[in-house]
C-alpha cells in the first residue's frame, strides 16, 4: 500500500476572476498529523472541501487514498471521516442515538460505547445533542467522523471560536487520533494549534503555499539568525560595541547565526568596559514570527 495518503499537484480553484486556490502541491503520508495553516480566506476550506469530494476543482491532480475524490463513491467514503467547519447536531437525538444512526451508514463501524469513551462523552451518552456545550459538540463531531473507523480524518477548523479549556479538550481528542494510527488532515488559523498537534505544517496565504515542513524547520526557521537584545548601558555610545548592531529605541539589537560566541564577545567586552548589559535577551524566531512574516502580517 502506498505511503502517500494525500497527493495534490497544481491544484487550482477559481470563482469567476477570483482564484481562491492558485496552484498548490501537497503530500500527506500515512500516520501523519498534517496541519494546513493560514489566515481566514486563504483558501483552506476550499482546498479541504475539494479533498473531501464536496467541491469541484478548476485544475490540477488530486489523489486521496489513491482515488480522485471527485469520482469517489461509497467504498471511498467508508475509509474517510470528515469533521466539517460548520455542522449542527442531529436534531432530537441523544449522543448515543446520533452515533448509532451514523454507525448504520458504514460497512464496518467501530463500537459505539468505545467511540463515546474515546471522545470523552461518557457522561453525556443520553444527553440530547442540543444540550451539549460547544466543545462537547465538537467532540461529538469527531466521534461521528470516527464511527466508521476511517483511515483518514479531515478536521476543518476544529476549535475556531472555542475558549481555552474547550480547545485543550479538543486537542487531546485529536492527539488521541494519532494514537489510533489515523492520518489526520487539519486546517486551522491558530499557529499554536498547528505547532501543538501536527507533525508537518503547510502554510497557505492568498491561495498559494508559502511554506511547508516540520514546525521546527518551517519557513527556514532553523537557519534564521537569533536576535540578541539588551538595553544600551548608560554612558555607552553604540559605536563602541564590539559587534555590528542596530538600535531599536533605546535597545540594542544584534542578529547572529551563532548567538553563543556573540554573547561571549559581548560579555567579555562589557566586563572589560565595566558595564552591565541590562535586560539581556536571546531569542530564536518563534513559529508565530515566521507565520506572520510568511502570511504578510497579523492574521
Amino acid at each position, binding site marked *: 500500500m502506498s505511503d502517500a495518503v494525500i497527493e495534490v499537484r497544481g491544484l487550482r480553484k477559481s470563482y469567476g476572476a477570483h482564484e481562491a486556490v492558485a496552484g498548490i502541491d501537497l503530500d500527506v503520508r500515512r500516520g501523519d498529523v498534517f496541519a494546513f495553516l493560514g489566515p481566514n480566506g486563504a483558501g483552506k*476550506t476550499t482546498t479541504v472541501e475539494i479533498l*473531501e469530494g*464536496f467541491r469541484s476543482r478548476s485544475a490540477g491532480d488530486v489523489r486521496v487514498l489513491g482515488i480522485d475524490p471527485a469520482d469517489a463513491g*461509497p*467504498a471511498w*467514503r*467508508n475509509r*474517510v*471521516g*470528515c469533521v*466539517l467547519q*460548520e*455542522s*449542527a*447536531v*442531529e*436534531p*432530537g*437525538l441523544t449522543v448515543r*442515538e446520533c452515533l*448509532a*444512526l*451514523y454507525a*448504520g*451508514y*458504514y*460497512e464496518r463501524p467501530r463500537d459505539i460505547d468505545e467511540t463515546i469513551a474515546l471522545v470523552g462523552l461518557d457522561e453525556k451518552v443520553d444527553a*440530547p445533542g442540543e444540550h451539549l456545550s460547544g466543545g462537547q459538540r465538537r467532540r461529538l*463531531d469527531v466521534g*461521528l*467522523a470516527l464511527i*466508521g473507523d476511517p483511515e483518514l480524518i479531515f478536521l476543518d477548523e476544529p476549535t475556531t471560536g472555542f475558549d481555552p479549556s474547550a480547545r485543550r479538550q479538543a486537542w487531546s481528542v485529536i492527539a488521541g487520533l494519532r494514537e489510533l494510527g489515523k492520518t489526520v488532515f487539519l486546517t486551522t488559523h491558530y499557529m499554536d494549534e498547528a505547532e501543538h498537534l501536527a507533525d508537518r505544517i503547510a502554510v497557505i496565504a492568498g491561495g498559494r503555499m508559502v511554506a511547508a515542513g516540520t514546525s521546527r524547520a518551517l519557513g527556514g526557521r532553523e537557519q534564521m539568525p537569533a536576535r540578541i537584545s539588551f538595553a544600551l548601558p548608560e554612558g555607552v555610545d553604540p559605536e563602541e560595541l564590539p559587534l555590528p548592531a542596530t538600535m531599536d529605541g533605546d535597545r540594542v539589537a544584534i542578529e547572529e547565526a551563532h548567538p553563543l560566541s556573540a554573547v561571549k564577545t559581548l560579555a567579555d567586552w562589557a566586563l572589560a568596559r565595566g558595564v552591565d548589559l541590562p535586560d539581556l535577551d536571546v531569542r530564536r524566531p518563534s513559529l508565530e514570527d515566521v507565520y506572520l512574516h510568511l502570511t504578510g502580517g497579523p492574521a
Partner: protein
Amino acid sequence: MILHQFRYDLLAFFRNRQLRFFTAVLPVVFLVIFVSVFGNRSLGHGVKASTYYVPGLAALGVVSGSFLNLVISVTAQRESGVLKRRRATPVPPSALIAGRALAAIVVALFVMAVLLIIGRFAFGVTLAASSLPSVTVTGVVGAMSFSCLAYALSTAIKDADAAQPMVQAIMLPLYFISGVFVPNVNLPHRLRDVAAVFPVQHLADGLHRAFGPTTHGAGFAWADLGVLVAWGAAGLVIALRRFAWTPSARAA
C-alpha cells in the same frame, strides 16, 4: 438502510416540539374549534357541517404531517450542515431521502387517523367500513405527493427560519379556498376555479368523497387522485433537478 434512517427520523420528529405542534397538535385544535363552532349547522341535503369538516381537516392533517413537516426539517437540516455531514458518509442519498419521506408519510397518516378517531368518538362522524380503503389510499397518495412537493419547495427556501412562515403563507389561503375551512359550495366560482388548480382541494375532495353520505361502495375519486399524482410528479422533477445537500451559499 431506508428503515434505519426512517426509525431515527421518526424518533427525531416526535422529539421536536415545533414540528409536533404545527403538524400534529394544530390540526386537532382546528378540528375541535371548527366542529364545535359550526358542526351542528346543516349544509343542505341533510349533511351536517361536522361530516364536512372532519374529512376536510383530515386533509389539512395530511398536508401538515407531510408537507409542512418536511419543508421545515429538510430546510433546517440542509442549512445547519446536517445533510452535508451525512453526505460525507457512505450512505446512499436515496436512502436518506426515502427514509425521511417515509417518516413524513407515516406521520401524515398518523395525524389523519387521529383526526378521524376524534371525529368518530367526539363528534359522531362515522366512516363506513367500505370507505376505509379509499380513505387510506387517498391519504397515502396525498402524503406522497405532498412529500415530493415539500422537497421541491425546500430548494427555494434559503433560510431555515423562513420555512415555517413560507409554508403557512402558501397553505392558509389554499385551505380557505379548497373546502377545508369553509365549505367550498359557498365560494364564488372564480375562487373555486383557482382552487381546482392546486392539490389541496383535490386531497380534500378525495376525502370528502369517501365520507359523503351519498357515496356507496368504495368512493374512490380517481380524477382527484390523478391531479394529486400529477402535482407530486412535478414536485419530484423539480426536487431531482434542484435538490442540494450543502447550505446555501453565504458571503464567506
